[in-house]
Protein backbone atom coordinates (compact mmCIF):
# COMPACT_ATOMS: atom_id res chain seq x y z
CA UNK A 1 0.00 0.00 0.00
CA UNK A 2 1.30 3.32 -1.12
CA UNK A 3 0.79 5.48 1.95
CA UNK A 4 1.16 3.12 4.91
CA UNK A 5 4.71 1.94 4.34
CA UNK A 6 6.04 5.30 3.13
CA UNK A 7 4.75 6.96 6.25
CA UNK A 8 6.48 4.39 8.43
CA UNK A 9 9.68 4.92 6.47
CA UNK A 10 9.43 8.68 6.98
CA UNK A 11 8.52 8.66 10.68
CA UNK A 12 10.98 5.94 11.66
CA UNK A 13 11.57 7.15 15.20
CA UNK A 14 7.89 7.34 16.03
CA UNK A 15 7.08 3.90 14.64
CA UNK A 16 10.21 2.28 16.09
CA UNK A 17 9.18 3.41 19.55
CA UNK A 18 5.74 1.92 19.28
CA UNK A 19 7.24 -1.21 17.70
CA UNK A 20 9.58 -1.58 20.66
CA UNK A 21 6.67 -1.44 23.08
CA UNK A 22 4.81 -3.97 20.98
CA UNK A 23 7.81 -6.32 20.89
CA UNK A 24 8.06 -6.19 24.67
CA UNK A 25 4.37 -6.85 25.15
CA UNK A 26 4.35 -9.66 22.60
CA UNK A 27 7.41 -11.15 24.29
CA UNK A 28 5.66 -11.11 27.65
CA UNK A 29 2.54 -12.65 26.16
CA UNK A 30 4.50 -15.48 24.58
CA UNK A 31 6.70 -15.98 27.60
CA UNK A 32 3.86 -16.18 30.08
CA UNK A 33 1.89 -18.42 27.75
CA UNK A 34 4.89 -20.72 27.57
CA UNK A 35 5.25 -20.62 31.33
CA UNK A 36 1.58 -21.42 31.84
CA UNK A 37 1.82 -24.37 29.49
CA UNK A 38 5.04 -25.52 31.07
CA UNK A 39 3.62 -25.35 34.56
CA UNK A 40 0.45 -27.11 33.47
CA UNK A 41 2.54 -29.90 32.03
CA UNK A 42 4.84 -30.05 35.00
CA UNK A 43 1.83 -30.24 37.24
CA UNK A 44 -0.43 -32.64 35.44
CA UNK A 45 1.54 -34.45 32.76
CA UNK A 46 0.76 -37.93 34.10
CA UNK A 47 -2.99 -37.39 33.81
CA UNK A 48 -2.69 -35.46 30.54
CA UNK A 49 -0.65 -38.27 29.02
CA UNK A 50 -3.02 -41.03 30.04
CA UNK A 51 -4.88 -42.71 27.21
CA UNK A 52 -8.10 -42.24 29.19
CA UNK A 53 -10.87 -39.88 28.04
CA UNK A 54 -13.03 -40.05 31.19
CA UNK A 55 -12.70 -40.99 34.82
CA UNK A 56 -15.26 -42.47 37.17
CA UNK A 57 -14.99 -41.02 40.66
CA UNK A 58 -17.04 -41.26 43.77
CA UNK A 59 -19.75 -38.67 44.01
CA UNK A 60 -18.90 -35.79 46.30
CA UNK A 61 -15.19 -36.15 45.71
CA UNK A 62 -15.10 -32.80 43.93
CA UNK A 63 -13.35 -34.39 40.96
CA UNK A 64 -10.34 -35.17 43.15
CA UNK A 65 -8.77 -38.60 42.87
CA UNK A 66 -7.49 -38.48 46.43
CA UNK A 67 -10.99 -38.08 47.85
CA UNK A 68 -12.61 -40.86 45.87
CA UNK A 69 -12.78 -44.59 46.52
CA UNK A 70 -13.79 -47.35 44.09
CA UNK A 71 -13.58 -51.11 44.23
CA UNK A 72 -13.59 -54.09 41.89
CA UNK A 73 -17.35 -54.31 41.78
CA UNK A 74 -17.55 -50.86 40.26
CA UNK A 75 -14.94 -51.77 37.66
CA UNK A 76 -16.96 -54.76 36.61
CA UNK A 77 -20.07 -52.63 36.28
CA UNK A 78 -18.18 -50.17 34.09
CA UNK A 79 -16.63 -52.95 32.00
CA UNK A 80 -20.06 -54.31 31.19
CA UNK A 81 -20.85 -51.05 29.45
CA UNK A 82 -17.65 -49.87 27.81
CA UNK A 83 -15.99 -53.24 27.31
CA UNK A 84 -13.32 -55.08 29.26
CA UNK A 85 -10.45 -53.35 27.51
CA UNK A 86 -11.73 -49.83 27.97
CA UNK A 87 -11.87 -49.55 31.76
CA UNK A 88 -9.03 -49.80 34.25
CA UNK A 89 -8.61 -49.20 37.93
CA UNK A 90 -6.36 -46.39 39.04
CA UNK A 91 -4.93 -45.99 42.51
CA UNK A 92 -3.39 -42.73 43.57
CA UNK A 93 -1.67 -41.64 46.73
CA UNK A 94 0.44 -38.61 47.45
CA UNK A 95 3.20 -39.49 49.83
CA UNK A 96 6.78 -38.96 50.86
CA UNK A 97 9.60 -41.41 50.18
CA UNK A 98 13.18 -41.60 51.42
CA UNK A 99 15.85 -43.24 49.29
CA UNK A 100 17.15 -46.14 51.46
CA UNK A 101 20.12 -45.17 53.59
CA UNK A 102 19.63 -41.50 52.88
CA UNK A 103 17.86 -38.85 54.89
CA UNK A 104 16.48 -36.58 52.21
CA UNK A 105 12.72 -36.85 51.80
CA UNK A 106 11.08 -36.54 48.43
CA UNK A 107 7.41 -35.88 47.72
CA UNK A 108 6.06 -38.29 45.14
CA UNK A 109 2.71 -39.48 43.85
CA UNK A 110 2.18 -43.21 43.76
CA UNK A 111 0.04 -44.44 40.89
CA UNK A 112 -1.17 -48.02 40.95
CA UNK A 113 -1.90 -49.41 37.51
CA UNK A 114 -2.36 -52.72 35.73
CA UNK A 115 1.22 -53.51 34.59
CA UNK A 116 0.14 -54.67 31.12
CA UNK A 117 -2.72 -52.21 30.79
CA UNK A 118 -2.97 -48.99 28.84
CA UNK A 119 -2.45 -46.80 31.90
CA UNK A 120 1.07 -48.13 32.32
CA UNK A 121 3.53 -45.83 30.50
CA UNK A 122 6.40 -47.01 28.30
CA UNK A 123 9.69 -47.38 30.13
CA UNK A 124 12.67 -45.41 28.76
CA UNK A 125 15.45 -47.16 30.67
CA UNK A 126 15.38 -50.31 32.80
CA UNK A 127 12.47 -52.72 32.81
CA UNK A 128 8.76 -52.08 32.94
CA UNK A 129 6.29 -53.07 35.63
CA UNK A 130 5.33 -56.68 35.95
CA UNK A 131 2.37 -58.15 37.76
CA UNK A 132 4.23 -60.64 39.90
CA UNK A 133 7.57 -59.00 40.68
CA UNK A 134 6.99 -57.61 44.15
CA UNK A 135 8.38 -54.24 45.12
CA UNK A 136 9.55 -53.31 41.64
CA UNK A 137 8.54 -49.79 40.56
CA UNK A 138 8.98 -47.41 37.63
CA UNK A 139 9.68 -43.81 38.53
CA UNK A 140 9.69 -40.49 36.74
CA UNK A 141 13.03 -39.33 35.39
CA UNK A 142 12.94 -36.22 37.54
CA UNK A 143 13.79 -38.43 40.52
CA UNK A 144 17.23 -39.01 39.05
CA UNK A 145 18.00 -35.42 40.04
CA UNK A 146 17.52 -36.60 43.64
CA UNK A 147 20.20 -39.22 43.16
CA UNK A 148 17.78 -42.03 42.40
CA UNK A 149 19.00 -44.61 39.88
CA UNK A 150 18.00 -48.13 38.87
CA UNK A 151 18.33 -50.37 41.89
CA UNK A 152 17.80 -47.57 44.42
CA UNK A 153 15.48 -48.59 47.22
CA UNK A 154 12.72 -46.09 48.12
CA UNK A 155 11.03 -46.32 51.51
CA UNK A 156 7.42 -45.16 51.67
CA UNK A 157 7.28 -43.17 54.91
CA UNK A 158 3.73 -43.78 56.14
CA UNK A 159 3.69 -47.54 55.49
CA UNK A 160 7.38 -48.37 55.66
CA UNK A 161 7.07 -50.37 52.44
CA UNK A 162 10.27 -50.68 50.40
CA UNK A 163 10.32 -50.35 46.62
CA UNK A 164 13.17 -51.04 44.24
CA UNK A 165 13.46 -48.76 41.21
CA UNK A 166 13.48 -51.00 38.17
CA UNK A 167 12.92 -48.47 35.38
CA UNK A 168 12.49 -44.83 34.48
CA UNK A 169 9.60 -43.18 32.64
CA UNK A 170 9.38 -39.69 31.13
CA UNK A 171 6.94 -36.79 31.71
CA UNK A 172 5.01 -38.34 34.54
CA UNK A 173 4.12 -35.95 37.32
CA UNK A 174 1.05 -35.22 39.38
CA UNK A 175 0.62 -32.01 41.36
CA UNK A 176 4.27 -31.19 40.54
CA UNK A 177 5.44 -34.40 42.24
CA UNK A 178 7.24 -37.13 40.26
CA UNK A 179 5.19 -40.30 39.91
CA UNK A 180 6.11 -43.75 41.21
CA UNK A 181 4.26 -46.52 39.35
CA UNK A 182 3.46 -49.63 41.36
CA UNK A 183 1.64 -52.82 40.45
CA UNK A 184 -1.54 -53.89 42.16
CA UNK A 185 0.10 -56.27 44.54
CA UNK A 186 2.30 -53.53 45.96
CA UNK A 187 -0.65 -51.20 46.07
CA UNK A 188 -2.32 -53.62 48.43
CA UNK A 189 0.87 -53.78 50.49
CA UNK A 190 0.82 -50.07 51.29
CA UNK A 191 -2.80 -50.16 52.34
CA UNK A 192 -2.59 -50.86 56.04
CA UNK A 193 -5.96 -52.38 56.92
CA UNK A 194 -7.90 -53.48 53.88
CA UNK A 195 -7.60 -57.00 52.55
CA UNK A 196 -9.55 -56.02 49.46
CA UNK A 197 -7.58 -53.28 47.67
CA UNK A 198 -9.36 -49.95 47.38
CA UNK A 199 -8.67 -47.80 44.34
CA UNK A 200 -9.41 -44.16 43.64
CA UNK A 201 -10.86 -44.05 40.16
CA UNK A 202 -11.75 -45.99 37.05
CA UNK A 203 -10.13 -44.73 33.89
CA UNK A 204 -12.33 -45.05 30.81
CA UNK A 205 -11.22 -45.00 27.20
CA UNK A 206 -13.43 -43.55 24.44
CA UNK A 207 -16.77 -43.60 26.26
CA UNK A 208 -18.25 -40.41 24.84
CA UNK A 209 -21.32 -42.20 23.53
CA UNK A 210 -21.96 -44.33 26.61
CA UNK A 211 -21.50 -41.48 29.08
CA UNK A 212 -25.05 -41.38 30.41
CA UNK A 213 -25.40 -45.16 30.34
CA UNK A 214 -22.25 -45.41 32.40
CA UNK A 215 -23.55 -42.86 34.83
CA UNK A 216 -26.80 -44.81 35.21
CA UNK A 217 -25.01 -48.09 35.84
CA UNK A 218 -22.85 -46.64 38.59
CA UNK A 219 -25.02 -45.14 41.29
CA UNK A 220 -23.16 -42.97 43.74
CA UNK A 221 -20.44 -42.41 41.16
CA UNK A 222 -19.67 -39.55 38.84
CA UNK A 223 -18.29 -39.73 35.28
CA UNK A 224 -16.04 -36.77 34.47
CA UNK A 225 -13.95 -35.73 31.49
CA UNK A 226 -10.19 -35.90 31.65
CA UNK A 227 -9.92 -32.09 31.50
CA UNK A 228 -12.11 -31.82 34.61
CA UNK A 229 -9.86 -34.25 36.43
CA UNK A 230 -6.81 -32.25 35.38
CA UNK A 231 -8.15 -28.94 36.64
CA UNK A 232 -9.09 -30.53 39.96
CA UNK A 233 -5.46 -31.44 40.66
CA UNK A 234 -4.42 -29.44 43.72
CA UNK A 235 -2.93 -26.09 42.68
CA UNK A 236 -3.66 -26.52 38.98
CA UNK A 237 -6.60 -24.12 38.67
CA UNK A 238 -4.94 -21.48 40.84
CA UNK A 239 -1.71 -21.49 38.84
CA UNK A 240 -3.41 -21.44 35.48
CA UNK A 241 -5.96 -18.87 36.58
CA UNK A 242 -3.31 -16.38 37.64
CA UNK A 243 -1.30 -16.79 34.48
CA UNK A 244 -4.36 -16.68 32.24
CA UNK A 245 -5.40 -13.44 33.88
CA UNK A 246 -1.98 -11.96 33.18
CA UNK A 247 -2.16 -13.02 29.55
CA UNK A 248 -5.65 -11.60 29.12
CA UNK A 249 -4.51 -8.31 30.60
CA UNK A 250 -1.51 -8.19 28.30
CA UNK A 251 -3.79 -8.69 25.32
CA UNK A 252 -5.98 -5.84 26.48
CA UNK A 253 -2.96 -3.63 27.16
CA UNK A 254 -1.58 -4.25 23.70
CA UNK A 255 -4.91 -3.35 22.13
CA UNK A 256 -5.09 -0.19 24.21
CA UNK A 257 -1.52 0.92 23.53
CA UNK A 258 -2.12 0.58 19.81
CA UNK A 259 -5.53 2.20 20.01
CA UNK A 260 -4.16 5.24 21.81
CA UNK A 261 -1.11 5.54 19.58
CA UNK A 262 -3.08 5.37 16.35
CA UNK A 263 -5.85 7.55 17.67
CA UNK A 264 -3.39 10.30 18.58
CA UNK A 265 -1.59 10.23 15.25
CA UNK A 266 -4.90 10.03 13.38
CA UNK A 267 -6.07 13.18 15.11
CA UNK A 268 -2.76 14.85 14.31
CA UNK A 269 -3.29 13.98 10.67
CA UNK A 270 -6.90 15.14 10.38
CA UNK A 271 -6.16 17.87 7.85
CA UNK A 272 -3.98 15.49 5.90
CA UNK A 273 -6.77 12.94 5.67
CA UNK A 274 -9.10 15.77 4.62
CA UNK A 275 -6.80 16.67 1.75
CA UNK A 276 -6.43 13.04 0.73
CA UNK A 277 -10.20 12.66 0.62
CA UNK A 278 -10.58 15.93 -1.29
CA UNK A 279 -8.17 14.81 -4.00
CA UNK A 280 -10.14 11.60 -4.41
CA UNK A 281 -8.86 8.97 -1.96
CA UNK A 282 -11.71 6.80 -0.73
CA UNK A 283 -12.35 6.26 2.96
CA UNK A 284 -11.86 2.51 2.51
CA UNK A 285 -8.42 3.14 1.06
CA UNK A 286 -7.38 5.29 4.01
CA UNK A 287 -8.87 2.84 6.51
CA UNK A 288 -6.95 -0.01 4.89
CA UNK A 289 -3.84 2.07 5.15
CA UNK A 290 -4.25 2.50 8.92
CA UNK A 291 -5.08 -1.19 9.37
CA UNK A 292 -2.07 -2.22 7.33
CA UNK A 293 0.20 -0.20 9.58
CA UNK A 294 -1.25 -1.95 12.61
CA UNK A 295 -0.75 -5.33 10.95
CA UNK A 296 2.84 -4.54 10.04
CA UNK A 297 3.53 -3.45 13.61
CA UNK A 298 1.85 -6.41 15.29
CA UNK A 299 3.14 -9.10 12.92
CA UNK A 300 6.61 -7.58 12.93
CA UNK A 301 6.76 -7.43 16.70
CA UNK A 302 5.46 -11.00 16.96
CA UNK A 303 8.20 -12.27 14.68
CA UNK A 304 10.86 -10.43 16.68
CA UNK A 305 9.50 -11.52 20.04
CA UNK A 306 9.06 -15.08 18.76
CA UNK A 307 12.79 -15.14 18.01
CA UNK A 308 13.52 -13.60 21.41
CA UNK A 309 11.42 -16.21 23.21
CA UNK A 310 13.18 -19.05 21.39
CA UNK A 311 16.57 -17.63 22.36
CA UNK A 312 15.34 -17.28 25.92
CA UNK A 313 14.09 -20.83 25.92
CA UNK A 314 17.55 -22.09 24.97
CA UNK A 315 19.11 -20.05 27.76
CA UNK A 316 16.64 -21.19 30.41
CA UNK A 317 17.75 -23.88 32.87
CA UNK A 318 16.36 -27.38 32.27
CA UNK A 319 14.36 -27.32 35.51
CA UNK A 320 12.38 -24.25 34.41
CA UNK A 321 9.00 -25.42 33.20
CA UNK A 322 8.53 -23.74 29.84
CA UNK A 323 6.68 -25.15 26.86
CA UNK A 324 5.59 -23.21 23.82
CA UNK A 325 4.34 -25.61 21.17
CA UNK A 326 3.83 -24.33 17.65
CA UNK A 327 0.05 -24.60 17.84
CA UNK A 328 0.00 -22.52 21.04
CA UNK A 329 2.34 -20.03 19.38
CA UNK A 330 0.08 -19.71 16.34
CA UNK A 331 -3.04 -19.43 18.47
CA UNK A 332 -1.53 -16.80 20.77
CA UNK A 333 -0.22 -14.83 17.80
CA UNK A 334 -3.61 -14.87 16.13
CA UNK A 335 -5.27 -13.47 19.26
CA UNK A 336 -2.53 -10.85 19.61
CA UNK A 337 -3.03 -9.70 16.01
CA UNK A 338 -6.81 -9.71 16.36
CA UNK A 339 -6.58 -7.61 19.53
CA UNK A 340 -4.20 -5.18 17.83
CA UNK A 341 -6.45 -4.76 14.84
CA UNK A 342 -9.45 -4.25 17.10
CA UNK A 343 -7.45 -1.50 18.80
CA UNK A 344 -7.13 0.31 15.49
CA UNK A 345 -10.87 0.25 14.78
CA UNK A 346 -11.35 3.41 16.76
CA UNK A 347 -8.94 5.27 14.49
CA UNK A 348 -10.55 3.83 11.40
CA UNK A 349 -13.87 5.14 12.65
CA UNK A 350 -12.24 8.54 13.20
CA UNK A 351 -10.81 8.52 9.67
CA UNK A 352 -14.21 7.68 8.25
CA UNK A 353 -15.70 10.72 9.95
CA UNK A 354 -13.19 13.21 8.59
CA UNK A 355 -14.79 15.41 5.94
CA UNK A 356 -13.05 16.21 2.67
CA UNK A 357 -14.57 19.64 3.01
CA UNK A 358 -12.05 20.38 5.76
CA UNK A 359 -9.41 20.85 3.09
CA UNK A 360 -11.10 23.94 1.63
CA UNK A 361 -10.94 27.32 3.25
CA UNK A 362 -8.35 26.20 5.77
CA UNK A 363 -5.08 27.89 6.45
CA UNK A 364 -2.07 25.82 7.50
CA UNK A 365 -3.34 23.18 9.89
Amino acid at each position, binding site marked *: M*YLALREMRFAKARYSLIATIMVLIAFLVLFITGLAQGLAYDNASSVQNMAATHFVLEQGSNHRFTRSQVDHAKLEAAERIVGKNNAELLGLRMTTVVPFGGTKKVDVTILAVEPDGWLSPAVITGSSLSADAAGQVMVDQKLSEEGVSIGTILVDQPSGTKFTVSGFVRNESFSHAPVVFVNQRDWLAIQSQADQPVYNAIAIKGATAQGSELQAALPGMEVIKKSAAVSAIPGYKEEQGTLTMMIVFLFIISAFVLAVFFYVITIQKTS*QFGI*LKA*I*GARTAYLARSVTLQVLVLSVGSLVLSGILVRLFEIALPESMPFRLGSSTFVWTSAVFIAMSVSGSLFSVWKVARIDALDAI*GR*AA*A
Partner: protein
Amino acid sequence: MKNRLELRAITRSFEDGGTARVILDKLDFKAAEGELVAVIGPSGSGKSTFLSVAGALLEPSSGEVLLDGEPINRMGKQELADVRLRKLGFIFQSANLIPYLKVEEQLRLVANLAGVSKTKAAERARELLDQMGLSHRRTAYPEKLSGGERQRVAIARALMNDPSVLFADEPTASLDAARGLDIVQMLARQVKERNKSAVMVTHDERVLAWCDRVYVLENGKLIEQ
Protein backbone atom coordinates in the same frame (compact mmCIF):
# COMPACT_ATOMS: atom_id res chain seq x y z
CA MET B 1 -15.71 26.75 -27.08
CA LYS B 2 -16.82 23.97 -24.79
CA ASN B 3 -17.82 24.61 -21.19
CA ARG B 4 -15.72 22.48 -18.90
CA LEU B 5 -17.65 23.51 -15.79
CA GLU B 6 -21.14 24.85 -15.49
CA LEU B 7 -23.22 25.76 -12.41
CA ARG B 8 -26.94 26.27 -12.91
CA ALA B 9 -29.09 28.08 -10.35
CA ILE B 10 -27.03 26.88 -7.41
CA THR B 11 -28.48 27.67 -4.01
CA ARG B 12 -26.80 26.72 -0.80
CA SER B 13 -27.94 27.66 2.67
CA PHE B 14 -26.70 26.78 6.14
CA GLU B 15 -28.79 26.25 9.20
CA ASP B 16 -27.76 28.93 11.68
CA GLY B 17 -29.52 29.00 15.02
CA GLY B 18 -32.84 27.85 13.63
CA THR B 19 -32.87 30.14 10.60
CA ALA B 20 -31.49 29.22 7.20
CA ARG B 21 -28.79 31.58 5.92
CA VAL B 22 -28.55 31.62 2.17
CA ILE B 23 -24.89 31.80 1.15
CA LEU B 24 -25.23 31.03 -2.55
CA ASP B 25 -28.43 32.32 -4.16
CA LYS B 26 -29.47 30.91 -7.58
CA LEU B 27 -25.93 31.34 -8.74
CA ASP B 28 -24.95 30.68 -12.38
CA PHE B 29 -21.41 30.14 -13.55
CA LYS B 30 -19.54 28.85 -16.60
CA ALA B 31 -15.89 28.21 -17.26
CA ALA B 32 -14.76 27.38 -20.80
CA GLU B 33 -11.69 25.52 -22.03
CA GLY B 34 -8.45 27.42 -21.61
CA GLU B 35 -9.95 29.88 -19.14
CA LEU B 36 -8.62 30.92 -15.75
CA VAL B 37 -11.42 32.55 -13.77
CA ALA B 38 -10.85 34.43 -10.52
CA VAL B 39 -13.44 34.79 -7.76
CA ILE B 40 -12.91 37.50 -5.18
CA GLY B 41 -15.01 38.84 -2.37
CA PRO B 42 -14.89 39.79 1.30
CA SER B 43 -14.32 37.22 3.97
CA GLY B 44 -17.48 35.30 4.76
CA SER B 45 -19.10 36.04 1.41
CA GLY B 46 -19.19 32.36 0.49
CA LYS B 47 -16.14 31.87 -1.73
CA SER B 48 -15.12 28.64 -0.06
CA THR B 49 -18.70 27.41 -0.18
CA PHE B 50 -18.81 28.17 -3.90
CA LEU B 51 -15.56 26.33 -4.52
CA SER B 52 -16.72 23.33 -2.48
CA VAL B 53 -19.97 23.02 -4.41
CA ALA B 54 -18.23 23.40 -7.77
CA GLY B 55 -15.53 20.95 -6.64
CA ALA B 56 -17.96 18.13 -5.75
CA LEU B 57 -17.12 18.42 -2.06
CA LEU B 58 -20.40 19.91 -0.89
CA GLU B 59 -23.91 19.24 -2.06
CA PRO B 60 -25.90 22.32 -3.11
CA SER B 61 -29.35 22.81 -1.58
CA SER B 62 -30.65 23.07 -5.13
CA GLY B 63 -29.32 23.59 -8.63
CA GLU B 64 -27.07 21.59 -10.94
CA VAL B 65 -23.32 21.18 -11.38
CA LEU B 66 -22.13 19.94 -14.77
CA LEU B 67 -18.63 18.69 -15.53
CA ASP B 68 -17.86 18.47 -19.26
CA GLY B 69 -21.62 18.61 -19.75
CA GLU B 70 -22.34 15.74 -17.31
CA PRO B 71 -24.41 16.44 -14.19
CA ILE B 72 -22.88 15.16 -10.94
CA ASN B 73 -25.83 15.80 -8.64
CA ARG B 74 -27.09 12.25 -8.41
CA MET B 75 -23.78 10.63 -7.63
CA GLY B 76 -22.97 8.77 -4.39
CA LYS B 77 -20.03 9.50 -2.13
CA GLN B 78 -17.64 7.06 -3.77
CA GLU B 79 -18.56 8.16 -7.27
CA LEU B 80 -17.92 11.75 -6.28
CA ALA B 81 -14.53 10.77 -4.87
CA ASP B 82 -13.79 9.17 -8.22
CA VAL B 83 -14.87 12.32 -10.06
CA ARG B 84 -12.56 14.41 -7.89
CA LEU B 85 -9.74 11.95 -8.48
CA ARG B 86 -10.04 11.77 -12.27
CA LYS B 87 -11.75 14.96 -13.47
CA LEU B 88 -10.84 17.62 -10.92
CA GLY B 89 -7.58 18.98 -9.59
CA PHE B 90 -7.21 20.86 -6.30
CA ILE B 91 -4.63 23.36 -5.16
CA PHE B 92 -5.22 24.39 -1.55
CA GLN B 93 -4.03 27.32 0.45
CA SER B 94 -1.24 25.49 2.21
CA ALA B 95 -0.56 22.19 3.96
CA ASN B 96 -1.34 20.81 0.58
CA LEU B 97 1.23 18.09 0.42
CA ILE B 98 1.52 14.84 2.33
CA PRO B 99 4.54 15.36 4.62
CA TYR B 100 5.93 11.84 4.29
CA LEU B 101 5.88 11.59 0.51
CA LYS B 102 8.77 12.78 -1.66
CA VAL B 103 7.91 15.28 -4.41
CA GLU B 104 7.68 12.62 -7.07
CA GLU B 105 5.62 10.37 -4.81
CA GLN B 106 3.06 13.12 -4.24
CA LEU B 107 2.30 12.86 -7.94
CA ARG B 108 2.60 9.09 -8.13
CA LEU B 109 0.05 8.76 -5.31
CA VAL B 110 -2.84 10.18 -7.31
CA ALA B 111 -1.87 8.06 -10.32
CA ASN B 112 -1.76 5.04 -8.00
CA LEU B 113 -5.21 5.88 -6.62
CA ALA B 114 -6.55 6.10 -10.16
CA GLY B 115 -4.96 2.78 -11.11
CA VAL B 116 -2.56 4.21 -13.70
CA SER B 117 0.33 1.91 -14.61
CA LYS B 118 3.67 2.57 -12.95
CA THR B 119 5.63 3.31 -16.11
CA LYS B 120 3.01 5.73 -17.41
CA ALA B 121 2.81 7.47 -14.04
CA ALA B 122 6.60 7.78 -13.80
CA GLU B 123 6.78 9.29 -17.26
CA ARG B 124 4.02 11.79 -16.62
CA ALA B 125 5.42 12.80 -13.24
CA ARG B 126 8.81 13.45 -14.82
CA GLU B 127 7.27 15.57 -17.57
CA LEU B 128 5.17 17.65 -15.16
CA LEU B 129 8.02 18.21 -12.72
CA ASP B 130 10.23 19.31 -15.63
CA GLN B 131 7.67 21.88 -16.69
CA MET B 132 7.33 23.19 -13.15
CA GLY B 133 11.10 23.49 -12.90
CA LEU B 134 11.22 20.94 -10.10
CA SER B 135 13.32 18.16 -11.64
CA HIS B 136 16.13 18.71 -9.18
CA ARG B 137 13.70 18.44 -6.20
CA ARG B 138 12.22 15.12 -7.25
CA THR B 139 13.31 13.21 -4.15
CA ALA B 140 12.90 16.02 -1.61
CA TYR B 141 10.36 15.88 1.18
CA PRO B 142 7.89 18.82 1.46
CA GLU B 143 9.56 20.09 4.64
CA LYS B 144 12.69 20.83 2.58
CA LEU B 145 10.83 22.88 -0.05
CA SER B 146 10.17 26.60 -0.17
CA GLY B 147 6.57 27.86 -0.16
CA GLY B 148 6.67 28.52 -3.89
CA GLU B 149 8.08 25.11 -4.64
CA ARG B 150 5.34 23.47 -2.58
CA GLN B 151 2.62 25.23 -4.55
CA ARG B 152 4.29 24.21 -7.81
CA VAL B 153 4.25 20.60 -6.64
CA ALA B 154 0.57 21.05 -5.81
CA ILE B 155 -0.11 22.32 -9.35
CA ALA B 156 1.76 19.38 -10.82
CA ARG B 157 -0.18 16.97 -8.60
CA ALA B 158 -3.49 18.59 -9.60
CA LEU B 159 -2.59 18.01 -13.26
CA MET B 160 -1.35 14.47 -12.77
CA ASN B 161 -4.57 12.66 -13.71
CA ASP B 162 -5.27 15.01 -16.65
CA PRO B 163 -8.39 16.58 -15.11
CA SER B 164 -10.94 18.86 -16.79
CA VAL B 165 -11.14 21.56 -14.16
CA LEU B 166 -8.65 22.90 -11.64
CA PHE B 167 -9.72 24.55 -8.37
CA ALA B 168 -7.36 26.79 -6.46
CA ASP B 169 -8.27 28.04 -2.99
CA GLU B 170 -6.17 31.12 -2.25
CA PRO B 171 -3.05 29.49 -3.66
CA THR B 172 -0.88 32.55 -3.11
CA ALA B 173 -1.94 33.33 0.45
CA SER B 174 1.24 32.06 2.06
CA LEU B 175 3.64 33.43 -0.59
CA ASP B 176 5.33 36.78 -1.12
CA ALA B 177 4.25 38.91 -4.08
CA ALA B 178 6.82 37.74 -6.61
CA ARG B 179 6.34 34.07 -5.87
CA GLY B 180 2.57 34.47 -5.82
CA LEU B 181 2.68 35.95 -9.29
CA ASP B 182 4.93 33.11 -10.41
CA ILE B 183 2.44 30.52 -9.28
CA VAL B 184 -0.53 32.19 -10.98
CA GLN B 185 1.42 32.60 -14.21
CA MET B 186 2.35 28.96 -14.12
CA LEU B 187 -1.27 27.98 -13.49
CA ALA B 188 -2.48 30.23 -16.33
CA ARG B 189 0.05 28.75 -18.74
CA GLN B 190 -0.92 25.16 -17.91
CA VAL B 191 -4.61 25.97 -18.33
CA LYS B 192 -4.01 27.47 -21.78
CA GLU B 193 -1.60 24.80 -23.01
CA ARG B 194 -3.64 21.86 -21.81
CA ASN B 195 -7.07 23.26 -22.53
CA LYS B 196 -8.28 23.00 -18.95
CA SER B 197 -10.54 25.32 -17.03
CA ALA B 198 -9.45 26.78 -13.73
CA VAL B 199 -11.32 28.56 -10.95
CA MET B 200 -9.26 30.47 -8.43
CA VAL B 201 -10.50 32.04 -5.22
CA THR B 202 -8.13 34.80 -4.18
CA HIS B 203 -7.61 37.86 -2.06
CA ASP B 204 -4.56 38.87 -3.99
CA GLU B 205 -5.44 41.76 -6.36
CA ARG B 206 -2.00 41.72 -8.00
CA VAL B 207 -2.57 38.41 -9.72
CA LEU B 208 -5.92 39.31 -11.30
CA ALA B 209 -4.18 40.62 -14.42
CA TRP B 210 -3.35 37.04 -15.31
CA CYS B 211 -6.92 35.84 -15.12
CA ASP B 212 -9.28 35.81 -18.10
CA ARG B 213 -12.29 36.87 -16.09
CA VAL B 214 -12.79 38.16 -12.57
CA TYR B 215 -15.98 37.72 -10.55
CA VAL B 216 -16.98 39.26 -7.26
CA LEU B 217 -19.13 37.14 -4.98
CA GLU B 218 -21.72 39.34 -3.36
CA ASN B 219 -25.07 38.54 -1.77
CA GLY B 220 -24.88 34.98 -3.01
CA LYS B 221 -24.35 35.93 -6.67
CA LEU B 222 -21.32 36.24 -8.94
CA ILE B 223 -20.91 39.62 -10.61
CA GLU B 224 -18.41 39.95 -13.44
CA GLN B 225 -16.01 42.85 -13.26
